[in-house]
């Protein structure tokens, strides 16, 4: 777990230090991609906690979600419909659901552990 957080910090510091910038008109795509990847990440954590984690699903979901979200946003720009809102909505709702499930699982585990401790 700590190695994963180290990876996150490494990514952030690399991004800040290299000072890479994308053209402002593409900033919305990137923000949607970040949202999609966060959704996949929490989905993966949830699946892992529910013991249904599948490597292929996780990795393919990560890239596919990013591409789909960016593609939807791209299509929206060309059709004059704010389709990226659909992506934000979908990912946002799922993000909250996933986090809620993770919270419940962790709470249940904690309660179980406490019970076990009292029984002993």
């Amino acid at each position, binding site marked *: 777990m700590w190695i994963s957080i180290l*990876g996150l910090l490494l*990514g952030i510091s690399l991004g*800040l230090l290299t000072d890479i910038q994308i053209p402002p008109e593409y900033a919305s795509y*990137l923000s949607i991609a970040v949202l999609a990847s966060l959704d996949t990440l929490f989905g993966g954590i949830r699946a892992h906690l529910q013991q249904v984690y599948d*490597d292929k699903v996780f990795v393919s979901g990560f890239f596919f979600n990013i591409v789909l979200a960016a593609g939807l946003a791209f299509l929206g720009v060309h059709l004059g419909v704010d389709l990226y809102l659909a992506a934000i909505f979908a990912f946002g709702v799922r993000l909250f659901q996933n986090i809620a499930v993770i919270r419940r699982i962790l709470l249940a585990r904690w309660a179980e552990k406490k019970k076990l401790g009292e029984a002993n």
Partner: protein
Amino acid sequence: MKKRITGRFTVILFVIGFMSATQYNTVNTDNTRDSRDTWEIRQQLSREKQLHSELLSEISLLDDTLGKYSDKATKEPEAILKETVEDLRIGAGLTQITGPGIELEISPSLEAIALGTEITEIPPDLLIRLVNEINRFDGIELAIAGERVINTTAIRDINGYTTVNTEPISTPPFTIGITAESMEEARKLSSYLTASAIHDDFYIDDLTIAISEPQEDLALPAFDEEISMEYLEAGEGE
């Protein structure tokens, strides 16, 4: 298995971090455009270059003084100190100076005299404008109606009187003495002021400026009051 999952999560988190940082960089960049044209940039460059050369000459002057201080051969550090103090006094305007310069005489315009308009004092704003116009030249010293203008001089209205160094100046006519570094500079200043648009500003207030021929020896009085150094503090030594 567990190791592989951690590896996957690490990679994904790395990508997320990188993307977030890039997004942060993009959003937080100030995209103000530099809309100056070549000419304006050239002017800026020339201003900076001038500043550069001024700083360099100041540094070399200070280096000279430093060299004199540290020169072991000098038996009299006291004399050098006195010299420095004298230089500083001259720079601050505490001594009387004599040099090539010009005199401006501010007097009521002929029309004002002919029409019998009441001669009022020169407004401080106008006087400040004139001083700023003169100060475009480097290395000049000036005295307004016998009041030496130094760095801390205030030209302002006190109880309805236009004052310089808190001394009220008389109603026109009065003279402004300006000394320059050389006769040539004085001539340049004279022709610059002759052609300056400041005459129009003075004419609106029924005043005219008469510019004298450059003189070899123009004397300016010393600043004779205490210099107020309320906000100055001694710096820490090296």
